[in-house]
């Protein structure tokens, strides 16, 4: 255990050195559009920047920051489920998912398959878009802005620039601001979250360790994020520039975090949630909602096809209800009563650091 910790720290220190130049350019981008970090004032900025036709007409200003970050506001208190087929997407919608993530393989299968994991097949994503009325998200590789251009053309509602896929660029993330479609990105702590927001991410999720069914990394990252936020919120103003330097984040955004006492965008939890109790744990630790990947469609693995669908549907429903009533233990007991065998999972401690996904992108 002790040696794992040493490795982790060593790796983190190295990574943050690499990130310095990237953070500097990110800070520059923010200072030219400082209002983009302020969801509430952004509306005013959009209204006064001249692009708005004041004709009370349709489509005056599309894809503003308010509109992009606003969709994430609508997802709050909800569960976003990984789905690999149209049938899964329908089960998820029926269970009350607030969005689905269209994938070719759930993360635990990506792990098992090895090889290079890329954006899902366009046809699969389009079929899922047609099958449900809830928003559809899809993943692109870190830094692969052409995959993102393709998904925007397909018309997905949100893009996840995700460490679960094999990174296309080991230094740069996608410059997300020019896209009309909003992005969600993973983070392990406050600095990483603010670097992604500076690049234009309109929603954040803590990474956890995808495809494991082990909640320990999700907890670690959520705690790290909030402890960073609390530290900023209680700092004196003159301490913020140095804090921004240490975080590798723009001062504007650090000031915004202090003002709000939270991230300026919605923050979900991901990576390891397998049961209603896991989902409620992450909500109590400060998530606005949860992503569940393998946890639903890898449950009931030992059952025959029909029983498995029933089982997965029960798990999906129970996790949705647990997120609604995350603070009510009696209700959590009730929703947990109906579920069967969760995904088997794999403890993160048994996975070599080089095979862990959360370290991708920083």
């Amino acid at each position: 255990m002790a040696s794992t910790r040493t490795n982790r720290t060593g790796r983190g220190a190295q990574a943050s050195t690499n990130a310095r130049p990237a953070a500097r350019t990110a800070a520059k981008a923010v200072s030219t559009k400082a209002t983009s970090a302020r969801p509430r004032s952004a509306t005013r900025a959009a209204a006064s920047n001249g692009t708005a036709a004041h004709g009370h007409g349709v489509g005056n200003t599309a894809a503003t920051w308010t509109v992009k970050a606003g969709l994430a506001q609508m997802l709050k208190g909800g569960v976003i489920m990984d789905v690999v087929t149209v049938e899964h997407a329908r089960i998820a919608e029926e269970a009350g998912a607030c969005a689905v993530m269209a994938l070719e393989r759930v993360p635990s299968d990506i792990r098992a398959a090895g090889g290079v994991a890329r954006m899902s097949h366009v046809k699969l994503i389009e079929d899922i878009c047609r099958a449900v009325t809830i928003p559809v998200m899809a993943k692109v590789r870190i830094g692969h802005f052409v995959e993102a251009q393709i998904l925007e053309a397909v018309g997905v509602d949100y893009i996840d620039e995700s460490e679960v896929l094999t990174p296309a660029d080991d230094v740069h993330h996608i410059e997300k601001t020019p896209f009309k479609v909003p992005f969600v990105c993973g983070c392990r702590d406050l600095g990483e979250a603010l670097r992604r927001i500076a690049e234009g991410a309109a929603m954040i999720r803590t990474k956890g360790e995808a495809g494991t069914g082990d909640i320990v990394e999700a907890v670690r990252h959520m705690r790290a994020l909030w402890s960073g936020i609390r530290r900023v919120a209680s700092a004196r103003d003159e301490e913020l520039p140095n804090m921004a330097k240490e975080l590798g984040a723009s001062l504007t955004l650090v000031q915004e975090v202090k003002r709000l006492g939270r991230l300026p965008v919605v923050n979900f939890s991901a990576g390891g949630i397998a049961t209603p109790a896991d989902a409620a744990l992450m909500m109590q630790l400060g998530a606005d909602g949860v992503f569940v990947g393998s946890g639903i469609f890898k449950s009931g693995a030992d059952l025959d096809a029909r029983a498995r669908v029933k089982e997965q549907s029960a798990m999906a429903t129970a996790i949705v209800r647990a997120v609604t009533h995350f603070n009510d233990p009696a209700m959590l007991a009730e929703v947990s009563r109906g579920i069967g065998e969760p995904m088997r999972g794999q403890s993160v401690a048994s996975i070599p650091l080089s095979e862990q996904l959360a370290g991708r992108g920083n």
Partner: protein
Amino acid sequence: MQGDFREHIDCLRTVGADAVEVRTEAELDAVDGLIIPGGESTTIARLLIAFDLMEPLRRRIRAGMPTWGTCAGAIILARRVPGLDRPPLGVMDITVDRNAFGRQVDSFEADLDIEGVTGGPMRAVFIRAPVIREAGAGVTVMAALADGRIVACREGNIWATSFHPELTDDARLHGAFVALVQATLGEAVAAPSARPRRSAAAR
């Protein structure tokens, strides 16, 4: 049950109302007015059924409790929603088309003149927004887009808007809704001591 209730609560507090979250029947009983927030209408509807809130909600709304649905909330209130066999609450005589403008890349902002809101147009944020395709005889249109599509209306004490006033700094519409709640309380109780209380519906 799900959605941007925090933003509604912030707006209500800005205009001086006492705002709480509503997730259970007991919490519903304690409020004088209700906002059903933006979110995913399918999700909110499923949760209302799962936690036995449909019937109590219908009862309160039919008894005259001021109720305002924004975006997904408007879908929850509508009597007719193409694509849904059973509209969730079905308490308002309107037909609502879901995702009427297209997908997220088609979401937009526009300036709107709204009945009952003085001091110039409001900036309205439309996110995968619905449109009120038809309004029944008893429904008053509060705002429409330049092409005539209805995006805000009222019927008795029920309001429906396609857009999200809670995502801007402009709380004028929330102020007007609080005034409606106060007026309704005044009629019902005939005593000015009643406290205006309300809630951003449900999570």
